[in-house]
Every structure is written in structure tokens, then in C-alpha cells.
């Protein structure tokens, strides 16, 4: 076998092995999230229920509550992780992630506005969340535009915009009625409690549209990863390709936020963790798996692992774990002299 073919085969095998392990972890977590709980279900009963022959109580708990919740967790994990992976690689900066730059914050602010100011509910709120993400992303894009979009400026503008969005959220909440504010809280901290099949269907449908587009874009993104000059030399129109991929990423972040609110740091940490595991170019597949694992595991931990039966939303767990990672990243960047 030739050196090139051999090397490619070895690389593909190592990526496949690592992805297989991640997929296995995901399956274990998925099964755990269906069986564990204040009412725990044995694996035998779980299989019976899933094949349609279980008791009605089990059926309600598994099919009506836990299965949709776990499904939504996996789907939004994928959406957030891919959004983050695209942002970071397109802008060449690990800080460039939709949750750090206020894109998901924009979705929250729009949702809370719809809820508290306009008195909307249900799908209309989710739609506003999507609109908010797109609006904020467009604002960052235009404000940072100077003969093209460059990672560093994009991140600085994004961080500034994210503070603006936070301020708006704070203002809305202080003005709101206590009970309304309570229901608006889910838009500040992403939560999977109360996730229904409708939410799963929404995210699944969105991903069904966005993922094929992403697959068509991937060969161009692999070249764009080499820098604009090299990509242009290879025949990629760098600016339009990047804009399209960013729009795709914003749509994914908006989709996830519309379904469950902004689950902190999932977009931010998934791709770096995935790349550490598979060490392969864009590592989009592995990032998606890692994102799903993080959301599912955080939701499980938030429900069952805290002392005294305390239950917290998944977004609090991811925030508590993600913030130290951000600090570590900043400390490391300080030492090596930059984030580029």
C-alpha cells in the first residue's frame, strides 16, 4: 500500500475508533437517563416498554417524559456543538463561540421580550428566540466587518454585544411581574425539564435541513481552515463561504436555544474537547457527539447527582464546569501570548 493511502487509512481508523467510543458513552448515558429517576425502571421493563408491551405507568414515564427529554438533550447538544465548532474554526479563535459572543444571549433576550413585553407564548416565543439569535449575529457581523470578517475583531465586538444583551435581559426581568419572571428564567439558564416531543420534533426538523447543507459545505471549510490566502489560492471564494457557514452555525445555535434556552458553554467546549480526542481537522462528527454527551450528562447530573435531592437545570451544571475551562484557556493563552 502506498504511504498516502496507508496514512489516510490509519487516520480514518483512529477517528472511527474514537467516534465509536464516544457513541458508546452516549448510548450508555441515554439508557441511564431512561432508567434512572425517583421512579427507577429496570432494564428488562425498559425494553418491554420500548417494544410496546410495558405497564401503562412505565409507558407514561418513559415514552411521555424521559424519552423526549433525553432525545431533546441529544439533539440540542448536537446543534450547539456544531454551531460552536463552526464559529471557532471559521473565525480561528477558541473564544469565538455563539454562547460567548452573545448570539444565544440574543435568542434569550428576544424570547424574554416576547414573553414579558408582547405576552406571547409557545411556538411564538421559540420563533422569537431564533429571530433574536439571527439579529444579534447579523449585528456582530456588520459591526466587525472591515474588508472581510476577521476572528479577533469579531470576538471583541461579540463580547461587547453580549454585555449589551445581558443588560437588556436584566432590565426586562427587573421590570417584570414575579410570576412572569419565574417563567422567563428558563431563557436565562437552559433547562430540559418539561422538554416534550414537540421540542424534539422542532430540533430534529431543523437539523434535518441544516445538516445536509453542512455536509455540502464541509470540503470548502476544510480548505478555508488553511487561512483565507491559501483557500483563495485553491479556488475557494473565502468570504462568501465563510458567511454561509456562519449563517448555518447561527441557525443551529438559534435552533438549540429556541428549544431549551441557552445551555451555557456547550458550544464553547465541545469542539476543543472533540479535537483533543480525535485530533482531526474539523472534527465535526466528534464535536456533535461530545455536545450530545455533555448536555445529556449535565441533565442527568442536575437531576440525580446533587446532594439532598436538589435538582438544577442542565445549564447550571454546564456553566459550573465550563467557566473554569474558560479561565484555563485564558490563562494558557496569556502564557503563549495570544488566542489566535
Amino acid at each position: 500500500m502506498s504511504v498516502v493511502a496507508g496514512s489516510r487509512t490509519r487516520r480514518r481508523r483512529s477517528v472511527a475508533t474514537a467516534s465509536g467510543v464516544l457513541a458508546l458513552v452516549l448510548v450508555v448515558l441515554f439508557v441511564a437517563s431512561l432508567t434512572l429517576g425517583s421512579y427507577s425502571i429496570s432494564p428488562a421493563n425498559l425494553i418491554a416498554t420500548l417494544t410496546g408491551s410495558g405497564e401503562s405507568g412505565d409507558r407514561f414515564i418513559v415514552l411521555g417524559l424521559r424519552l423526549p427529554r433525553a432525545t431533546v438533550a441529544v439533539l440540542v447538544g448536537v446543534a450547539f456543538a456544531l454551531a460552536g465548532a463552526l464559529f471557532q474554526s471559521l473565525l480561528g479563535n477558541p473564544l469565538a463561540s455563539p454562547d460567548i459572543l452573545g448570539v444565544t444571549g440574543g435568542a434569550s433576550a428576544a424570547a424574554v421580550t416576547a414573553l414579558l413585553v408582547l405576552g406571547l407564548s409557545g411556538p411564538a416565543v421559540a420563533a422569537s428566540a431564533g429571530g433574536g439569535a439571527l439579529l444579534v449575529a447579523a449585528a456582530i457581523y456588520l459591526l466587525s466587518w472591515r474588508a472581510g470578517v476577521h476572528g479577533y475583531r469579531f470576538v471583541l465586538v461579540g463580547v461587547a454585544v453580549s454585555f449589551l444583551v445581558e443588560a437588556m435581559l436584566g432590565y426586562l426581568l427587573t421590570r417584570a411581574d414575579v410570576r412572569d419572571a419565574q417563567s422567563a428564567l428558563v431563557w436565562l439558564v437552559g433547562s430540559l425539564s418539561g422538554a416534550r416531543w414537540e421540542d424534539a420534533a422542532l430540533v430534529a426538523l431543523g437539523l434535518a435541513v441544516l445538516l445536509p447543507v453542512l455536509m455540502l459545505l464541509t470540503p470548502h471549510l476544510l480548505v478555508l481552515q488553511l487561512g483565507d490566502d491559501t483557500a483563495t489560492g485553491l479556488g475557494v471564494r473565502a468570504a462568501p463561504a465563510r458567511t454561509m457557514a456562519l449563517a448555518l452555525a447561527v441557525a443551529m445555535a438559534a435552533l438549540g436555544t429556541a428549544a431549551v434556552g441557552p445551555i451555557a458553554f456547550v458550544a464553547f467546549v465541545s469542539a476543543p474537547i472533540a479535537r483533543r480526542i480525535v485530533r482531526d481537522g474539523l472534527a465535526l462528527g466528534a464535536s456533535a457527539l461530545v455536545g450530545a454527551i455533555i448536555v445529556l450528562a449535565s441533565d442527568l447530573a442536575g437531576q440525580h447527582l446533587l446532594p439532598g435531592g436538589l435538582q438544577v437545570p442542565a445549564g447550571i451544571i454546564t456553566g459550573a464546569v465550563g467557566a473554569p475551562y474558560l479561565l484555563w484557556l485564558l490563562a494558557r493563552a496569556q502564557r503563549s501570548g495570544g488566542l489566535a
Partner: protein
Amino acid sequence: MTAQQHGFAAVGLRLGYEGRTVIDGLDLSIPPGQVTVIVGANASGKSTLLRGMARLLRATGGLVEVDGRDVRSIPTRQLAAIIGLLPQHPTAPEGITVVDLVGRGRYPHRGILRQWSATDAVIVERALAATSTLDLADRRVEDLSGGQRQRVWIAMALAQEPDILVLDEPTTFLDVAHQLEVLDLLLELNRTEGTTVVMVLHDLNLAARYADHLVVMAGGAVLTEGRPREVITEVTVREAFGLECRVVDDPVCGSPMVVPIGRFHGPSI
């Protein structure tokens, strides 16, 4: 000889950055099948010209032609199969292997219906062999030395199978041994494959040694061009670089060699 010969020229080219014009109305024809080296002082516009010719910089006037056609009328991928480019600061994504990086050079030859094939593998292998990087195939690009990394990037440009190879200061950041290694590689490529090479170099003496055609830029215009022996004179160096010098014969290959004169080491006449 596998490379095809193309006309490659700038016609009345105007280039600049954000409203500031650096080059205005420049005409330059790159001789096919030769090594052309562009030299000039800092801010003489040499890199700007190269970027303009490699379509990294949009012309604000005039045009760049390949075989008499305006490059803007040629589809980008088709053009990429003719002109390969090694920019000054290419970025390798973290964790990428040499084979993966060089393989991405096949991009212009691929499409939705043309996925990776055995031919691609053969061409990538040939590019690695030509740059003596075959034994680095499985290594991560970030773990390589500067000289190795530059050879890998050249391998990527070769995998593109360009007939014209454009390089922006390919020897910057390399020590002198690695500079010669890279330039020898490019010369070999030109002599064996017939690939047209166009590059910007900083070092006048290396430029004079490796160029078939030397272009000296000053103030955003071509001061003079031709064979190094005709071009490199004490007068030209003074005009282009504001430097007093003596020009002697390079004892190794007879090409003109510039020996600069500073304030302290002037001739004692």
C-alpha cells in the same frame, strides 16, 4: 516536462489597500517556464504586486491576464488548477497531519461528483516525494521544524498540480541552509517539470542566483527587469534600495553578487 506553459501578465494593474493606491498602471509579463523573482525595498510594492497577481488582492484598475483572458472571467477552481499559491503566512489547523494537509491541495480537482480517488493519492505521494517529505507523512504539521513545514506547504501547492507557482517570500524565517534547500527545490521543480515559478525574495544575492528573470520594484513601479546579470548594477541597487554597494561575481556560480557598503566600511579612496 509536465507543466503547461501559460501567458501570465499584469496589464495596467492598479492595486491598493482601503483607498490608498500602492501600484498604479503596472505592466508586467511573466516569462513562461522560467523562474521570476521580484525584489525591492520595503514598501516598494513587491508583495502587493504578487498578491494582486495571485488574486488575493482585488485590482482597483487594470487586470491580470492568464493566456490573454482576464482572470476574473475564469472560474476560481479552474484558475486554481493553473496557478498555485504559497502565501507568506499559511495556517495549519491544530492536529493536522502532513498527508491530510497536502491532500487538501487536491481541492481544485475535486467536486461533488469527483471524490478522493487513487489518482489523488498518487499525486499527493509524488508531491511528498518531490519535497522529500514522504517520511513525515504521519507527523503533525505543528511538530515539524520551520524548514520541514515550508517543504510541506510547497508539497501542498504541488498537489494542486499548478503550471504556475506563486510564492510570497518562501524563505522568510528560515536559516540560510533551509533557505537554499527551499530554493533548490523550486529550481529543480522548474527545471524538471517546467513549472513557471514567480516569487518575492528578500535576499538580493539569492534572488540573483536563482532567478532567470529578475524584476526590481521601486515606488510601486517596475524599476527594471531582465536577466540578473543585466539588471543588478550598482546604479540599480542605489535607486531601488538607497544603498551604496559593489557588484562582484558570485564565486560559486558567477551570478552578480551585491556587497553592501555601510558608513564605516567604505572603500578607502
